[in-house]
């Protein structure tokens, strides 16, 4: 399995249409740089995420995969370097602009606590649009809602839904705004294997059939196998890519990384 795309600051050279997000020498240091207690979570990461692709980020714990996801999503800021989403440089944005970006251009699926308990499933799904004061795109919303097959449970509150159903609502919310990119942080981490498979299959379909872009952090090779490509991180650096992965190829690659 050759590394087919090399991380490069020339990401934009691929054309804006082909890339949903990219980073340039993204570095994140916790603590004061140069001091003993400083921890380098991301070290000069330059990479790109293709539009309409499903990318999984993998790596041993402490490799910086969550940090990368948070910085990509505008939830955390880099110590140095840049992150671009839809051609916009996140490092130059105010909190207000970042918030707006997250609301309008990004979708989120967290491992747990994805839903606002006081809102119904449907209200949760259209929450970003409501926050923007917009009416959701009805035709698209119908398509998304149907894909997650919640049917009559749309009017239920989160505490009336199973864990798997809650995560599917979260997926629908992430996709409902037709974002430039969806970030998923261990979305199936808290689910049983059946719900997990359902969820991942749904994410796969969202990319294949609905043309969405998804970046997912996971430590589970089976989950990562749903992706088009796997990005491997270790010690805050990109250590390789794997296209069209299977659970087996991922496992053998991880073994090679010592993770």
């Amino acid at each position: 399995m050759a590394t087919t795309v090399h991380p490069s600051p020339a990401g934009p050279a691929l054309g804006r249409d082909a890339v949903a997000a990219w980073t340039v020498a993204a570095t994140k240091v916790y603590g004061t740089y140069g001091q003993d207690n400083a921890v380098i979570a991301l070290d000069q990461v330059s990479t790109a995420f293709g539009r309409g692709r499903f990318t999984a980020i993998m790596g041993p714990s402490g490799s910086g995969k969550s940090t990368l996801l948070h910085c990509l999503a505008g939830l955390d800021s880099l110590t140095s370097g840049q992150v671009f989403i839809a051609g916009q440089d996140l490092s130059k944005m105010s909190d207000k602009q970042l918030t707006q970006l997250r609301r309008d251009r990004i979708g989120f699926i967290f491992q747990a606590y994805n839903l606002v308990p006081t809102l119904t499933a449907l209200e949760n799904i259209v929450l970003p649009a409501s926050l923007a004061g917009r009416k959701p795109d009805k035709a698209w919303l119908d398509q998304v809602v149907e894909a997650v097959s919640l049917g009559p449970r749309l009017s239920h509150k989160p505490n009336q839904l199973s864990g798997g159903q809650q995560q599917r609502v979260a997926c629908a919310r992430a996709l409902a705004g037709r974002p430039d990119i969806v970030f998923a942080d261990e979305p199936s981490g808290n689910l049983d294997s059946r719900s997990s498979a359902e969820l991942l299959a749904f994410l796969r379909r969202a990319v294949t059939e609905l043309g969405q872009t998804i970046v997912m952090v996971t430590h589970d090779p089976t989950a990562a196998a749903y992706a088009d490509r796997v990005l491997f991180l270790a010690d805050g650096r990109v250590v390789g890519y794997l296209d069209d992965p299977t659970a087996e190829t991922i496992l053998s690659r991880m073994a090679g990384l010592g993770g």
Partner: protein
Amino acid sequence: MATLASLFARKLRLALTATAIVIGVAFMTGAFVLSDTLTATFDDLFQEVNESKDVVVVPRPAFGDATEGTGEPIPEATLGTVRRVPGVAAAEGSVLGLGQLLDEKGKQVTGAGPTLVGNPAEDEQLSTTTYAQGERPTKADQVALDKGTAKRIDATLGDRLALITPNGRVEVIVTGIFTFGSSNSLAGATLVEVPTRQAQELFDRVGLYDQIDVRGSGDLTQEQLRDRIAAVLPPTAQAETAEDNAAAQSESVGEFVGYLRIGLTGFALVALFVGSFIIVNTFSILVTQRTRELGLLRALGASRRQVLGSILGESVAVGILGSVLGVAGGVGLAFVLNLALGSFLGSSSATPVVKPLALAVPLVLGTVITVLAALYPGIRGSRVTPLAAMREDEGGGDLGLAKRGIVGGITTAAGAALFVVALTGGPAPLLGAGAVLLFVGLSLLLALAARPLVAAFGLPLSRTGAAGKLGLANAKRNPRRTASTASALMIGLALIGGVSTFAASVSASISEVIDRSVRADLVVQPNGFSPGFGTDITDQIAALPAADRSTPIRTGEIQVAGGTKSLTALDAADGDLLGLQVTAGSVGTILGGQVLVDEDLAKEQGWRVDQSIDVVFARTGPARLRIGGIFGKNELAGSFISSLATYDRNFTSNVDTVALVNAKPGRLAELRTQVRAVTQDNPTIKVQTRNEFQDELRSQVDTATQVVYVLLALSVLIAVIGIINTLALSVLERTRELGLLRAVGMQRKQVRRMVRTEAVVVSVLGGVVGLAVGVALGAAFVLSLADDGIDKLGLPVGQLIAAVIFAGLAGVVAALYPARKAAKMDVLRAITVE
């Protein structure tokens, strides 16, 4: 990081919760210390000025005390008799009356008390006043002033002032400035000394004294001297030891201070009661948040008792902390108030008197209330099962909503019942007990009604976008918490609603009362502390070309059937100016020395027209009066009506308290100008139309109401602290959710709006329910007073609307801190918090 944050949160919560108690305790301590200080100040003052006196001779009151049954003044000759009593070193006769001073510009000199006009004592030691500047007045046009007043009006020796008494106006020159004992003034009164002869002239006491002060030669006790003097006195006079006299003076001030103390303590208790709701709420939230921890404790083998103990332990800490801070704050408050009052009343004592009890009672009460309030949440916490350690979102064994409804309903009904019993003649303390039960019951019931009510109140807010909707949803999510937070505000606003309903009813009734009892075009009466004006004014008014009919009104008290009743004297021919409705007999009979009696009193005593009754007049003693007629309820007339001649024969007062005048047809404006001209010399006399008279009474009601509002604002302040506390805890509890909302695109502004919406909804809920309850309580109170002249129910619509807006604003203010905290939350930390 997490432990640091929770430690800080804990400190904050502790501080906010303690604040709920601090205010009430501080207020109570302040009330105690202030009243003790005032009492001590006046006790000292009276002791000081009475120091050299041994015996005082006063008119023997015909009944009751000297203010009720003012007796016959003491003849001048008695002074000589007393002076000749062996053992008497000196004796001084004094005359004392009420007047009004005008400054150099002719403006009335006003202060915190009345203007007392008297004569100086020749004997240095018997004199209560000490001249600081100049000397005693000796001529009719000379006066001396107390130092406090001189300072206030910037008067110096040689200034030309005017003095108004019932005898008219005198132009005077200031010849002396004195202190009262060591104090600049006496409790804010304006003190004026004029020569003895002049005082007798001014107050209709020629050849008479109001009091004789006696100094003994020192070889007799006060009692011995008193008895010797008593032996030579005419039957209309009596002797008292100076000690008894000083005690009586202290007592009358003490009575006033006592009312002040009870009143302020009442407001402090309300504040503590409101604070207790906040304690209940905070500890409930605490127990909920700590359910897992408590479950773990139980799993590790802690007994229920130990868990309860740990929660109550914290409440003891909060209670003691809050109470100690409150007591300290209260002493400080009393110190400041005492300084302010000192300069206002002219008293000199600057150090507050701090008695142990004034510290102990608020300290213990504050702590006990805190612990009692924490008891229910504590018991709930102790019922957490060990299993709860493994589960999430388990609220412990709280009362179910249905059970709450039953308990709340019963408590509310019991409270309402006690309230009604108290209003219909039951003992007054039941009123307080009933109110407490009522509010506790309502707060339980409110949990049931919270969701629908929030939905109803929030309807306009839900249109303001997603943030507003989420805020509303948050207000609905825990009805118990919402209800108990709103309840704190409910109490304050219920009291405000009750007071404003009562005040509006009084105002509405005033119109009716005045319409019923004043039929004259103009009401002429003195303002401020002045008792009245000379009868010559009324005579002049009666003779005015534009005046049609007029009558003076004089008032006094008589003793009849074992009680003191008011008597009003007026011109028989013009009784209708007072709107008299005579139901039996006729007004004219009073000219023959008969009296008219109030319908209700007549019914109560079984009196009929032409019956003779035994009464006691203050000056002339027992008399037999024949009832000439019976009149319907008239608030200005009091219980009895006599002719002016009957009045003059039997009372010492020589003043008219009111004059009622009718204009000749179409000449009201003219009459007014003419009356003004007659009273020109005397600016203390007010000339008002019936409407102006009503307006003034109403504005007095408004002023009193506003004072009460200010005091009730305290409990609203505590409720606001409660909302801050609850919201801050809720924000902390919802960290994860806030992180999610921020992650998916909620702006900081929207976060603030969300928190603010919740606060406003909760406070409007408390406000509206409180006002509704208050109006109901106020109305019940008003209905119970129908026999006392307040027979119209007024609904203060404007004020109620203002109060709801005020409640909403209180919510906005309360949301400031929690909203800021929520908006500033670090998104990443919030979504990754465990």
